[in-house]
């Protein structure tokens, strides 16, 4: 095992996991965002159409979460074994939230007399899952105490003002993704409503992103050094600048009657947000002490899985894109059949 090859593979795997997490966050992000915004739509036709716009794809979107978790387990088992016990209540809450959200897709159509209940479960499940995901991210960023090969912190380390802030930021960001998706997939009054929601969510997202960024720099001297001193600043600075450019473009697009542009800009916003997080924690997978190389699986595991990813990922992206293509355009009034 030559160390150079190992280093390269570990970095490749870090990018693959980051890609899976990004794919999950934006794809299930708009599903969860629609769940969060669901109560603001009229029961009946508006809600039916909003849910039908994601019914054929939510399951595939959620699969990226399994790849993110399963990939972490396989490629960085130590990180998986530390992060999940450290954020235990958040993970359990997320899983239970996703249970309610997922079954609501089926149940609300099967039981008209309890449709209001399952609509509520759809919203509450989405909200809890989004909040828990954002707080888990915050708990990771603020650092996890590790001793030997195990979590060594206390039981409520994950509950701080900072994690509440990242949780709210994620909820707002998902709402933005959901609202911009609905601008794309709906028309008429429902679309106008989605556009109004998107404006509010955009401002909330930007405010919370800013707050989290400031908090990051204040929270941790390492993070501050990374963002504020030369030469690191030359690599880091483009991220907030590009984020600002995208944010302005999106706020302008929301004032026009463009249908898909706000959604694509929201995706870009998330992309730069994640790039910023990458800059912040690199090369750690569990800040402050566990690097990706500390946590990496052995080379044989990495190579074996890389073969699988190289073969299957282009196919997965191709047939996922096809499924989206099949259900392109404004959502049917009556749903897809």
């Amino acid at each position, binding site marked *: 095992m030559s160390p150079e090859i190992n280093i390269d593979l570990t970095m490749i795997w870090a990018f693959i996991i980051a890609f899976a997490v990004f794919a999950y966050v934006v794809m299930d992000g708009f599903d969860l965002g629609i769940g969060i915004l669901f109560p603001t739509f009229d029961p009946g036709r508006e809600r039916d159409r909003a849910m039908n716009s994601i019914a054929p794809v939510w399951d595939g979107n959620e699969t990226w979460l399994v*790849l993110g978790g*399963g990939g972490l387990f396989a490629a960085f088992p130590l990180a998986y074994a530390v992060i*999940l016990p450290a954020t235990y209540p958040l993970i359990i809450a997320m899983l239970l939230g996703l*249970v309610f959200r997922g*079954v609501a897709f089926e149940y609300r159509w099967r*039981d*008209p007399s309890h449709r209001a209940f399952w609509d509520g479960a759809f919203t509450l499940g989405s909200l809890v899952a989004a909040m828990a995901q954002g707080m888990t991210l915050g708990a990771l960023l603020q650092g996890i105490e590790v001793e030997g090969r195990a979590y060594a912190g206390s039981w409520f380390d994950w509950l701080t003002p900072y994690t509440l802030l990242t949780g709210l930021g994620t909820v707002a960001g998902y709402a933005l993704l959901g609202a911009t998706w609905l601008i794309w997939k709906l028309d008429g009054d429902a679309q106008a409503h989605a556009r109004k929601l998107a404006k509010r969510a955009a401002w909330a997202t930007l405010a919370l992103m800013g707050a989290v960024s400031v908090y990051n720099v204040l929270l941790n001297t390492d993070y501050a050094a990374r963002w504020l001193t030369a030469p690191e600043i030359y690599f880091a600075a483009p991220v907030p600048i590009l984020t600002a450019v995208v944010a302005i473009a999106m706020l302008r697009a929301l004032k026009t009657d463009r249908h898909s542009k706000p959604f694509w800009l929201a995706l870009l916003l998330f992309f730069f947000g994640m790039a910023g997080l990458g800059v912040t924690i690199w090369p750690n997978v569990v800040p402050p002490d566990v690097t990706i190389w500390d946590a990496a699986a052995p080379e044989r595991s990495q190579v074996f899985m890389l073969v699988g990813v190289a073969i299957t990922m282009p196919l997965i992206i191709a047939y996922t894109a096809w499924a989206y293509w099949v259900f392109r355009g404004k959502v049917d009034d009556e749903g897809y059949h």
Partner: protein
Amino acid sequence: MFDGLDALLLARIQFAFTVSFHFFFPAFTIGLASYLAVLEGLWLKTGKGLYLDLFKYWVKIFAITFAMGVVSGIVMSYQFGTNWSVFSDLAGPVIGPLMAYEVLTAFFLEAGFLGVMLFGMNKVGKKLHFAATLMVALGTFVSAFWILSVNSWMQTPVGFEMGANGQFMPGESWLAIIFNPSFPYRLVHTVLAAYLTTAFVVGGVGAWHLLYDKANMHARKMFSMAMWMAAIVAPIQIVAGDMHGLNTLEHQPQKVMAMEGHYESHPDGAPLYLFGIPNDEEQRLDYAVGIPKLSSLILKHDLDAPLAGLDTIPDDEQPPVFMVFWAFRIMIAIGTAMMAVGVWSLLARWRGKLYEWRWLHRAALVMGPSGFLAVLCGWITTEVGRQPYVIYGLLRTADAASPLAAPAVATSLLAFILVYFAVFGAGVWYILHLMHKAPHVGELGAKRGDKGPIRTAGITPGPTQDPTDATTRDLSGTKREPEERP
């Protein structure tokens, strides 16, 4: 509620509870996905609307079951880390990649094509839709392949090296890890079990409607297809199960000792116990009723072959016998009953009375859910039977758990129990409701609006009437459903 239980036991109960619940759904969807593919294939081949009706009847049930399988499955994929972090860290390099392959080759395939399968018939055309159905069915099988490989490796671990940090590291060959000694047997036995489970559900639903109306052509067709499966697959499953048992005897003899209730060794022929109350304290089978030498005949194909008992195994290496012994017996009893129904149906078919013999229909109805119980009991047999180890002979369950405090696990366990019974209870209720409706001409499939017909994108439809649909629509376009409360 869980006072006095330690964190380890709570974590074990939580895993057993969540995995048992989860297992019901794939046990049904693996078979049902294949059944749907067969129905759609027959429809395309023969052009008979009957097959399409049956497809649409069962695809509604599939959609609900699949959703429950997905959400309960995500719980499993995270629970390795939340509750079994030491195991995850140590075994991750070997089993993590197999599970990653499951995601890449199975989960994405199922989920990617499920939307088209459920909602895309009129958007992509018949042939592409059939291809999507086949991909979903293939995905369910591939998923079983990988996860059973993982489970089998934990039962019969081979092909690894021990790392300096205590981790299990993959050896030279991944094929040795994937195709570990118990895997082929477990895969065949489990997939056949899934097919049988589905066959009996389909047969039970067919029988239910035949009991109301033996002229219902749809009910006749599903009942007939299910009984062919029972008659053909149940005997094959018994042979496969026997081979799996012999493989277990070779690699995990303690498990077979517990299954057989053999506390004591039998140097000249071991009895097959039909009944008994295992008593681990005293290391004996109380109230035992057995047939002399039959166990040796089954396991060694020799009436006088010696069989070692648990007296040759140190106490702290023994699995708890009671659960294994009884779970195994229930599974065997159900398997035998399944074969009996299959044979009975052959007799009825031969006499031309398949749709006439009401006692056969009643038996098939009672046996409808039996596959789930058999699958659960088989799972208990193999999982409890490999205790006290999580990686057989190498890592004890007690050494594999996360450093969590008992109150944290007790809380999550309580939450899982409440949520699972409520949510999946509702799902099962909806499924039973769908099953209770008789299949008929012009089934609607997994519709997602309150009306049937398909429209192109972006057009607001005018009022329509569809005679096959129970819903009505007034002129303003708002929907009204008969079930809706006033």
